[in-house]
């Protein structure tokens, strides 16, 4: 791995809280190792700021290995930065050139209010999950693993949907701030499996209702969500959700859902 250092200029969004308005502040970062991750670079910035007795920049992160969905950041206009299929925590400074100016903004959307600086409140996603992103299970001994055969193709497709880590990049990048990629992945991963089928209609109706109640926008099939998604979730799942919801609405109209 090429070991070197670069200097970059950061334009960072600073905002005290959801009530006050924010602004950009510029920071010069010199001698940043190209092997350091983007978040490590921000850690260095924060150490510097703390040394200078200034407020560190608040940003979200947890696992730092691309699986928890906690990191965010819109980097030069793209959630999780320009590299495809990558979370911010997996982005490294070798993806930047010496002398680059990097603009860092929060994931912007009305249902993602800023908590502080680059950290936004994504509990609207939690409430969508609570409205139906689960299966109801009896507790007790797990049933035999082979008692419920699931075709390989269906299992694979369900796993593709389940790859969603719920980071919110789809909402952040969408011109309509729509959460349909997230909601559809979380809905159809269960709808297409036998374990999820008993609650399929209820799940479809409730998750869409909650998504709307949170104030997310309406998909116009532009496709930026899929392109920005660190897990490459396909818009096929939105089509599936549209289908499942239509069926559920018709069934509920006739009192059958």
């Amino acid at each position, binding site marked *: 791995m090429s070991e070197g250092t670069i200097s970059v200029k950061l334009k960072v969004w600073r905002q005290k809280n959801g009530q006050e308005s924010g602004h950009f502040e510029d920071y010069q970062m010199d001698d940043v190792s190209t092997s350091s991750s983007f978040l490590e670079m921000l850690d260095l910035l924060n150490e510097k700021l703390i040394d200078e007795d200034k407020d560190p920049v608040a940003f979200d992160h947890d696992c730092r290995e691309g699986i928890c969905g906690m990191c965010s950041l819109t980097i030069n*206009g793209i959630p999780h930065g320009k590299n495809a299929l990558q979370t911010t925590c997996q982005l490294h400074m070798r993806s930047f050139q010496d002398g680059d100016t990097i603009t860092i903004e929060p994931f912007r959307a009305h249902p993602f209010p800023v908590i502080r600086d680059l950290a936004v409140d994504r509990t609207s996603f939690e409430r969508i999950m609570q409205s139906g992103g689960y299966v109801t299970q009896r507790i007790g001994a797990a049933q035999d693993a082979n008692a419920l055969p699931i075709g390989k193709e269906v299992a694979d497709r369900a796993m593709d949907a389940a790859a969603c880590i719920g980071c919110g990049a789809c909402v952040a990048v969408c011109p309509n701030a729509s959460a349909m990629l997230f909601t559809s992945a979380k809905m159809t991963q269960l709808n297409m499996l036998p374990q999820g089928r008993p609650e399929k209609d209820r799940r479809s109706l409730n998750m869409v209702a909650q998504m709307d109640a949170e104030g997310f926008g309406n998909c116009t099939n532009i496709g930026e969500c899929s392109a920005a998604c660190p897990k490459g979730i396909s818009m096929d799942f939105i089509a599936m959700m549209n289908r499942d919801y*239509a069926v559920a609405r018709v069934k509920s109209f006739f009192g059958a859902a």
Partner: protein
Amino acid sequence: MSSLVKKYLMALTGFVLVGFVCGHMLGNLQMFLHPDWINEYAYKLQHLPYGLLWVVRLVLLITVIVHVVVAVQLVLENRRARGGENYAAKAKLQATFASKTMRYTGLVLLAFIIFHILHFTVQSVHPEFKELHTEITGTGTLWHVYDHLKPMGHTNQHDVYAMVGIGFSPHFWYVPAFYIFSMALLCMHLTHGVASMFQSLGLRNSVWTPRLRKLALVIGWVVFLGFSSLPVAGLLQAFPHQDHIQAQYEHTFDGGAAHSDAAAHNH
């Protein structure tokens, strides 16, 4: 109304409008045949039984209203969802220009629809259009080809052929220019809209995505070329019976103008 119900309404009304647009285009292309074709076609539409013409008009009107009203609702909701603060750095990943300009192309289409109705249906843009009359002899139409059918032989019927020829003539060059411009925007609206329709209704998967994209592209371009051929032919005075159009123009527009000029002169 939930977000998805609004999407279904957009797609279903869009589907009806696409169907109408394709049928309308085929009807219009009769302008490249003998004048009797389009005049007879227009006569038959005007004389549909059971007031069917008004039923169709009403259905289309409701369709357009639903399409536009829901579109406006969606645009407003999406703007609210995006929030007050815009990104300082803007980037585009893969979105097509057509997909991001649906609201604008749609708005121009709405203006076009209103103008088009005033132009050729109400005929208030050029009231002279109402005075264009001709005989429908059936020459060159199917009545002629199958000679066991009697030609219609209507006299003094509205001369739609001349109306379109004059309406798109270089005398009013800005009118055909606006038509061509609007059809280019309709092409854009459809290259996204037709593919989007299937996604909104959930009738799509990754196998069908490239096929639907191509279908949308083909429909968009066929509609553009098919419709635009008329204003283009009008501007170039290239309709097959241009002499008939010219004669009708001189009779109704030039002649009329010369007439009133002379009358004004006499006073």
